[in-house]
């Protein structure tokens, strides 16, 4: 049975020079879990908004073709009517949660449908249980963390038991643990309730194993519509930027791409290519990514202090204790050497953003000290907050704009808010770097890759690599960390629990590890596909010699 039918749909936003969607046709059956892939600006979000009826009813613009959701034609039915059939979840949960308490939020769509009081009570209860948010029902929505808020927004989208659920990058603000939990939850809802799910995501390695089908958008058109293994084969030639790291690794040694870590390991094991995992450490010996925080990390820091130049940034036993609240940082100590590139990882609420604010002097420690060798430039999570002028040229000097790759004269007269997400990020970076008389000793970036596609992340990694200052980046994205960081600090409960070279920290775990490292079991400290291919080549050569 078809839940969604799209016939030759084309759409342009009001005043836009080019179409956001071009001649899109597809059919979705009940119970499918579909991943929508594509670079930023490829039309994923617009397609999701067309399915939920916001395009064209809310955004306006010109539309041709036909889109029918659960028997309702979007030309005749607006988003409010379609809400009975389509549950929608956008990227930012903050603006999707509209009521004061979680219970009221879950009840809201059911009340709008005119359900009876007992049906509303039952719907709220069942949704809360399904999403594991029963304990939050009476909490105020203003008190929830980002992950909790995202779950509540998902609950509101699911409360009416819609036949189709569309989600636009729902994991972009979540840590790897919460992101994986959300994907598992979606898979369970899809299996238990036969709900059709369309999920737009950039981190394909995270969600492809759960998908039945992948639709890749390229410049507003469907480039590929296939099962995940076929999609990966197509991506190898059709859209290399959409390949998962695992697929690139297997392709590098001449194997067909596999979806997920387990099949990739199986493929390598079949050919005898899977390297042996690192040997178990002797008691008392530090493990990779394990208890590095203890003696080894302190020893490393001491060695650095004894031998190297003065640190660019030093936090010494910094505490941040909220009045009548918890301690966000607990005796947190961290040093950055000049020119060192460090990634700060950890779950939502671990204290990463607070640590950065202390580094930049936006907060004062309740105990402990912060020293820096010079100015600390801080780029906060939302680059739009930095943009206050009418033109790009007024925001930063031409020299600073050139540093971040915005030297093209076409940018200068544009309104900063009209730039794409990646361009806004670079402009905000230009703003915080922009002081020729006082260049920063440390550059801190808080979650700079949220909602970025792989190409833009690559560009940002190159930009950071070229910076002479020490760089500290808080991120949830291990693949991005592997591309720029020398060192990784893992933060939990307000204090570092692991601190070491990226190859050590990112190859030793599950959640804070790259896909390549997980496939190879941490062998050779390989984090990126190219490094993994080199490790596999070595294994292959050793086998040839032995054979």
């Amino acid at each position, binding site marked *: 049975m078809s839940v969604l039918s799209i016939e030759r749909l084309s759409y342009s936003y009001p005043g836009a020079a080019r179409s956001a969607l071009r001649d899109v046709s597809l059919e979705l059956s009940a119970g499918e879990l579909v991943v929508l892939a594509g670079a930023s600006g490829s039309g994923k979000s617009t397609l999701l908004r067309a399915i939920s*009826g916001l395009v064209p009813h809310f955004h306006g613009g010109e539309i041709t073709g036909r889109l029918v959701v659960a028997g309702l034609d979007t030309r005749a039915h607006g988003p409010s009517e379609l809400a009975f059939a389509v549950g929608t979840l*956008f990227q930012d949960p903050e603006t999707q949660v509209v009521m004061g*308490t979680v219970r*009221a939020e879950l009840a809201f769509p059911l009340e*709008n449908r005119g359900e009876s009081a007992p049906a509303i009570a039952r719907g709220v209860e069942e949704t809360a249980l399904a999403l594991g948010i029963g304990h939050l029902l009476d909490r105020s929505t203003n008190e929830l963390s980002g992950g909790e808020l995202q779950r509540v927004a998902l609950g509101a989208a699911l409360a009416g038991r819609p036949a189709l659920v569309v989600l636009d990058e729902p994991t972009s603000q979540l840590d790897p643990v919460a992101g994986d939990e959300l994907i598992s939850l979606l898979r369970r809802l899809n299996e238990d309730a036969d709900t059709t799910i369309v999920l737009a995501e950039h981190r394909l390695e995270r969600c492809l194993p759960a998908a039945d089908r992948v639709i890749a958008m390229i410049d507003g058109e469907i480039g590929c519509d296939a099962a995940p293994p076929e999609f990966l084969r197509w991506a190898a030639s059709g859209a290399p930027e959409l390949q998962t790291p695992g697929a690139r690794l297997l392709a590098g040694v001449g194997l067909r791409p596999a979806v997920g870590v387990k099949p990739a390991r199986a493929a390598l094991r079949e050919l005898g290519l899977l390297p042996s995992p690192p040997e178990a450490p002797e008691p008392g010996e530090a493990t990779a990514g394990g208890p590095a925080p203890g003696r080894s990390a302190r020893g490393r820091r001491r060695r650095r202090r004894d031998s190297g130049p003065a640190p660019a940034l030093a936090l010494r036993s910094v505490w941040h204790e909220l009045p009548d609240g918890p301690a966000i940082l607990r005796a947190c100590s961290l040093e950055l050497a000049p020119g060192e590139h460090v990634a700060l990882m950890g779950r939502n609420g671990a204290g990463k953003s607070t640590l950065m604010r202390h580094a930049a002097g936006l907060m004062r420690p309740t105990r402990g000290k912060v020293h820096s060798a010079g100015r600390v430039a801080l780029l906060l999570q939302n680059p739009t907050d930095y*943009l206050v002028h009418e033109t790009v040229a007024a925001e930063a000097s031409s020299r600073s704009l050139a540093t971040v790759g915005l030297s093209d004269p076409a940018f200068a007269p544009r309104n900063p808010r009209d730039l794409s997400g990646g361009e806004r990020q670079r402009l905000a970076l230009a703003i915080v770097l922009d002081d020729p008389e006082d260049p920063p000793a440390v550059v801190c970036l808080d979650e700079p890759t949220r909602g970025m596609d792989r190409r833009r992340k690559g560009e940002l990694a190159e930009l950071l690599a070229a910076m002479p200052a020490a760089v500290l980046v808080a991120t949830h994205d291990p693949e991005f960390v592997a591309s720029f960081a020398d060192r990784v600090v893992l933060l939990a409960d307000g204090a570092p629990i692991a601190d070491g070279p990226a190859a050590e920290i990112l190859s030793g775990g599950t959640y804070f590890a790259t896909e390549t490292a997980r496939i190879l079991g941490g062998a050779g400290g390989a984090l990126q596909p190219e490094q993994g291919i080199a490790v596999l080549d070595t294994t292959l050569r050793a086998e040839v010699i032995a054979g």
Partner: protein
Amino acid sequence: MSYRRLASPLHAARAGAGCAYCLALACAALLADHPIELGAVAVAIAGAGLAAGVGRELRRAALFALPLAVAITVVNALVARDGLTVLVRLGQLPVLGHTDVTLEATVYGAVLGLRALALILCGALYTAAVDPDEVLRLFRRVSFRSALTATLATRMVPVLVRDARRLGDAQRCRPGRPPSRVALIRAASTGVLDRALDVAAALEVRGYGSAHRPPRATRPWSRHDVAFAAAAAAILVLSIASRVAGVAPFHAYPSLHAPAGLGVLGLGVALIACALGPFADRRGIGR
């Protein structure tokens, strides 16, 4: 300051009963003239706040209300021309002219200030202890869209406060000369409009555009619902009856008349007992 569900009898009571209770206390503050009666109402409100576990919220409100109460007292003492008992002769003052500070004007100003303090504390108690969603649900059956607008406004205040704080932090991160206020106001306004658009889109996809009138929810009356509704009724009856019967007579001008007899003392004790009585029963207050 915002509502948070705590384990207290007032939080456990239905919003209708909580509303009626706070409204009754506010009415008592408005009806009372005698300083003892008014003081008893203020004590009752403060006691209710402490018993409901929202003492910190009330203290914060008091920090704002006390200077206001003092200001009202001082202004009335300076501008009122009535009263026979002169405390201080200030002579000829600019703008105010010939000024004598009288005992009557000072006491009357203090009564006005105390009333303002009681009303502000009562508002703080309501904000911190009565579920706004439940209150608005009561009104949604009457005017759905107005009630939802009020809900959204309540919800968006902390969101916009956080946005403003973020914007401020981002501007502190800019090196060099800070941008002009006009530029900042423009950026903040644009941010608010963006937020509004996002919220409007979220409302649409939750089915708000074709919303029906919400159903009447039937919920059995708990011991706390009954206790607070009864307390509200008792406070109102006491206040109105004492006013009609003249139990707590008070007039400030031309000379102060505020007898502190057994009647007014009894009234004060009764008001406090009625207000705090429902807090004695703490069974079933958690969730």
